[in-house]
Structure formats: structure tokens, C-alpha cells
């Protein structure tokens, strides 16, 4: 879950990391007021979840509050990667002497957290690592032992820094590590971390991601920031259809039937499990099909959940038929899914044999499942029909019907 920049800065400020003076504005008038309070030149930054704001015109400078108002008006109306900003951040413009990079994330190979430092801030760290590897240093640290400040000092000193720069950067770095650990973050990045003309340091921009799995442990913080539980904060905001999908999955605690992502095709997909859904989605596209959605069934969901998911998928405008496909299942029961899907189709007012273009879920309790499908005349395949073949047949039958 990605924090907006203004939230990330509030979080870092709580942790004692210096951030520029300023505030967040939802209207041009508010931006004007904040610019007046800050005094002097300001920078206005679009609050969207994607990167590349500067290039897209989402960052503007202003010398007066009136200019700030005009800039805010433009920024608030500017879509960046299909997203309108939630607000605009107004901050004092900084006089920068030198830019650094500080980051904390996980190293999945070492299976440990890792602190990263570079004396070339302001550009993408992956780019620095590729083109100037001698300007990036990393150090894994223990998840079990308490983090000790000297680790950060050593990391920063290893790039030849000393004096006030070393002590100040060490202080910011250890606070960033604490924020990373305290708030269940998977990425905590300050870029650039700037030294100003007066010698002080300030986090000019930052990127914090909280792990989905850690959200429950930080409910208070999220409530304080006004972040709803169904705000996924992924690449784009969830659609209404996706929010309804999340509610289907909350019907009960048995298994999964949800994780819906909306697409603009005409073939509704009731698919699973985690890896199976990815495989099937690819296969449908490869055979020329246009999926209306992605979703996941797994972990032996209740019949009610499978039923509600089917109804949701069928309710999307433009969806004429559905394909029900999973990998060979281990714990999810074929008969329960079959019953749920058939019930969902009937409750939506349709004939299962018409609406379900193909059903392919082999595995646990498949005999019982196939009986149900036969009873309703649903075309199905067993484990001798591959997932790709099932996708092909579904796409073909949809084409014939249209």
C-alpha cells in the first residue's frame, strides 16, 4: 500500500526526519493560503500514486501566493497516468547544495532487510546502480537483533563521507530504518535527501509502501490518515466493481473468492487459484479472448462465496458469458465451486448451459462436481483437458455465440 507523498512526509516527520515546511491543499485557495504562510518561493506537487510527476507537469514552482494558486489550479486538473491528484502539496522551495539517496527495503535473496545509500540522489536508484555502481552501497541487517546506529554510520562512511555530513546523514538514516521497522513498511525511500545551502538536511521527496499484511497491525495510524480499509493503493484506485469483489470475499472467512480486477473485455472469468488465475488469464488472451475481469478462487471457499462471485462477474455490463477454469485443485472442492457457480448463474436469471461457455476444474471431489455439471448440461472438461485448451474452447464458443 503506497502512501501519498504528503502522508509519507507526515509519517517521517513523526519519526524525526526533517521535511520541508508546508502543507497539503485540496483547492487553489488553500494552496494560496499555505504559500502565504510558508513565505517566499514555493514548490507545488501533484499528489498521485505514480512516479514521473515532474515529466508529466505535476510539479510547478511559484514565487508568490497568487502564482501558487494558479499553479495549484492547473495541477489539480491534470491527470497523471489516468489518475487525478487527491490534492497538491505546497512546500518551501529549497536551495540545494547536494543530493543523496537513502532507502530501506527487503532483499529477497538474503531474506533480510537492506539499507541502501548513494551520494547521487535525485535520480532513480536503479539507474544509479546500473551506471554508477561505485556510488551505491548496501548493507543487510538482522531482523532478529536490534538495529544499531553504527551500521548506518559504516554504510555512509563507506562512500567517503565524514564530518557533519556523516553524522547528519547517519541520524536521518537510522530514523528511516526505525520508520521502516515500526510501520511494517516494505519500502522506505528518501530521494532526494538534500543538504541545503545552510548545511541542514531535508527529505525533499520520499516513497513509503506499507505491506498489505501489516495493515491490521497499524489500524490506528491508517485511521489517523483517513485511509479506508478498501483503499488498495495499488497502481490505480480500485473501481466500484473491484470494491464489490472485495466485499464478496468478506462474506465469510472460508477460503478466497474475490481479488477481482476489472478489464474491458466480454468474457467473464471465474478462475483460480493464485497461479492458476495468472496462467488462465494469459491463455485466454493468447487464444484471442478478451477477459472482462481477473479474479481468484482458492483455499476451499464456501458455496455462497462462489455463488456471489459468479453473480458479480455476470453483472458487469458487456459480459455475455463466463468461463470457469482452475488448475487441478488440492483443497478447493470441485463440487462446492460447481454448485456455487451454477446457483449464481440461475439466481442471475440465466441458464447454466448457456452462460457457462466452459468449466474445467479437476481435482478434489471432481466426481461429485461433474455430476452437477451434467445435470445442468454445462460443457466441462476433466484433467485430460489442459488449462490452455479449456481457455481456447471457451473463447471459441463465445465467438460462435456472438
Amino acid at each position, binding site marked *: 500500500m503506497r502512501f501519498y507523498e504528503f502522508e509519507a512526509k507526515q509519517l517521517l516527520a513523526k519519526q524525526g526526519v526533517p521535511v520541508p515546511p508546508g502543507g497539503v491543499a485540496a483547492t487553489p485557495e488553500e494552496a494560496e493560503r499555505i504559500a502565504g504562510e510558508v513565505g517566499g518561493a514555493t514548490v507545488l506537487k501533484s499528489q498521485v500514486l505514480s512516479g514521473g510527476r515532474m515529466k508529466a507537469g505535476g510539479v510547478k514552482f511559484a514565487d508568490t501566493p497568487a502564482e501558487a494558486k494558479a499553479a495549484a489550479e492547473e495541477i489539480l486538473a491534470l491527470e497523471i497516468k489516468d489518475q487525478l491528484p487527491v490534492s497538491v502539496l505546497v512546500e518551501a522551495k529549497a536551495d540545494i547544495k547536494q543530493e543523496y539517496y537513502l532507502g530501506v527495503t*527487503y532483499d529477497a535473496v538474503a531474506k*533480510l532487510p537492506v539499507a541502501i545509500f548513494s551520494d547521487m540522489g535525485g535520480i532513480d536508484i536503479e539507474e544509479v546502480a546500473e551506471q554508477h555502481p561505485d556510488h551505491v552501497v548496501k548493507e543487510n541487517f538482522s531482523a*532478529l537483533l536490534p538495529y544499531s546506529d553504527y551500521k548506518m554510520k559504516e554504510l555512509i562512511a563507506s562512500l567517503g563521507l565524514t564530518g557533519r555530513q556523516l553524522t547528519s546523514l547517519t541520524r536521518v538514516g537510522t530514523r528511516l530504518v526505525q520508520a521502516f521497522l515500526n510501520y511494517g513498511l516494505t519500502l522506505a525511500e528518501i530521494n532526494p535527501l538534500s543538504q541545503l545551502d545552510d548545511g541542514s538536511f531535508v527529505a525533499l521527496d520520499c516513497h513509503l509502501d506499507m505491506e498489505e499484511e501489516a495493515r491490521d497491525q497499524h489500524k490506528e495510524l491508517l485511521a489517523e490518515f483517513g485511509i479506508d480499509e478498501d483503499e488498495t493503493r495499488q*497502481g490505480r484506485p480500485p473501481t466500484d466493481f473491484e470494491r464489490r469483489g472485495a466485499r464478496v470475499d468478506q462474506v465469510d472467512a472460508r477460503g478466497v473468492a474475490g481479488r477481482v480486477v476489472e478489464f474491458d473485455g466480454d468474457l467473464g472469468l471465474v478462475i483460480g487459484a*493464485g497461479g492458476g488465475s495468472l496462467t488462465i488469464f494469459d491463455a485466454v488472451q493468447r487464444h484471442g479472448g478478451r477477459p472482462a475481469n481477473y479474479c481468484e478462487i482458492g*483455499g476451499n471457499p464456501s458455496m455462497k462465496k462462489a455463488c456471489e462471485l459468479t453473480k458479480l462477474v455476470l453483472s458487469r455490463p458487456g459480459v455475455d458469458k463466463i468461463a470457469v477454469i482452475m*488448475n487441478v485443485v*488440492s483443497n478447493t472442492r470441485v463440487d462446492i465451486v460447481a454448485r456455487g457457480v451454477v446457483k449464481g448463474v440461475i439466481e442471475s436469471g440465466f441458464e447454466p448451459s448457456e452462460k457457462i461457455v466452459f468449466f474445467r476444474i479437476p481435482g478434489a471431489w471432481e466426481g461429485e462436481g461433474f455430476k452437477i455439471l451434467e445435470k445442468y448440461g454445462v460443457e466441462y472438461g476433466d484433467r485430460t483437458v*489442459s488449462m490452455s485448451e479449456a481457455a481456447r474452447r471457451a473463447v471459441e464458443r463465445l465467438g460462435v455465440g456472438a
Partner: protein
Amino acid sequence: MSILVDENTSFIIQGITGREAVSMTRECLDYGSKVVGGVTPGRGGRDVYGVPVYDTVAEAVDKHGATGSVLTVPPAFTRDAVFEAIDNGIKLLVIVTERIPRFEVAEMVEFANMHGARIIGPNCLGLITPEKCKMGGIGGPAADTRKAYAPGPVGVMSRSGGMTTEIANALTAAGLGQSTAVSIGGDAIIGSSYAELMPLFEADEETKAIVIYSEPGGPMDAQLSEYVTKNNSRLPIVAFMAGRFMDKMPGMRFGHAGTIVEGKQDTAAEKLRRLEEAGIAVAEEIEEIPDLVKERL
């Protein structure tokens, strides 16, 4: 032969009285696995299909001497259960539980490394050496497991539990059995990656080829490519990559917790490029896998 588990493996199940754990116990027993005990705090003295339940791992290990454990406890209690198992000498831990925060997984793996224990998972279905031992829910009920898995020369490793069985099923149907199939888990940090299990398969004389199932996100494929290149592995590898559509959708998480495209190195396209560069064959469809394996045996 096999890796990690064979006919002599005996294990306990932590969280054995949970609904899914009870069915898993039945499935493992039916398949012939030696489930010697279970642990659920406060439920000591009961039994699940004849498997005695204890309050502590210490008691279960003391009575039955198991060295393996399948953990199927709620996410909030998993770290404690893992530490308890490792402190009591368990050397092979299969963590089924999903949605454990990454920091806790890092702690568990670090603790396991300190004690010479191995973790498979989290967020996995376990592992199976066909006709010898099924440790976890992999394959489902014993009858279904027997349909999908047969003994043979192919080692299987998969980030998806379901796709482990799908691939084994395709191999079995083509007359190719499996030495051991491991559902390695779908989380961003897992106890055992492809590259870390490779030396075990290398050392197993029966294993003649490897099949892996992978997804976008994470450095595991790059790590495997590097391993293969550096170690001049004797084992031909066939890989299948799902989620190619995700390359166009950065920042969106699909399927497993570890499956997200955050940078170029996470994309299916880039991972496939690296695998092929290391001489690993890439299957476009699951049904191509058996032929690709046969050509390389």
C-alpha cells in the same frame, strides 16, 4: 531417491485441530505419510484421526521424535509456532499459513538459519515424494494425489501450490514421474528458493530434470539463472512463466503476495530473457512441458 522427504520421514502438524488441518491430516495419513503427532495449545490429550494432540512441540517431539513439522496456524501466531518448532529440534518446517508480514518471515528464516533448520513456504502447499510421503495439503485427498503424482525422474518447484499439482499431472499423464515436487510458496520472502533447492536435486541420483513454475516479481529466477551458469548444473531445466499480462500493469499485485511488477527486473519478459540466457528451456503452455523435458533427458 528424493529430496527432503522419503518413506522414513515422520512429522507433526502444528495447528492440527483447525478445520483445514483436520482434512489435511486425513489426506496425509491416507497417502501413507507418518503423521506422528499434532500440536494445538489447550487441546492436549485429544486426537485427530488417531493422531495424538499435544499442548507443546516439546511434548510431541519427546514422545515421537519427529524432525519435521507442517504449520497451519493463523498468521498472528505463526512466528511463535515456528520458533517453538525450531527450538525443539525440528529441522524441516513447512509453513502453509498465508498473509504473514514480511518482517516476521525474515525473522523466522534468520532463526532457522541459526539452528540449521530449513523452511519451505510460507504460503505453500508443502512437498511430496510420490508414493513415499506427502507433507502438507499438496495434491489434496490421497486418491486425487495418486492421480496427479507418480514416482520418476523430474524434480518440480513451483511458486504456486495449485500449479505444482497441475504440472505434475501433465508430467504423469505423459509418463514422466516426479522425484520430489515442492510448492515453495508465493510470498516475497520464502524459506527455500529454486536456487537453494537445486543442490539437493543435484545430489539426488534419481532426479534427471527440473521443472519450475514462476511468476512476475522477485529475484528468484535471476538467482536460479545465476546458479545454473555458475555451477554448470547437470540438470536440464524447463520453466513456465505465468502472468505475462502483468508486464503492462506495474504496481498491481496479482495472485500471490510476491507477484507484482515494480521494476523492469520484475517483468515476465525480463525474467524469461534471463532464464533463456542461462540455457533454461521456456514452455509457452503447460502441455509443452513434458515434451521439452523428454527432449532433454
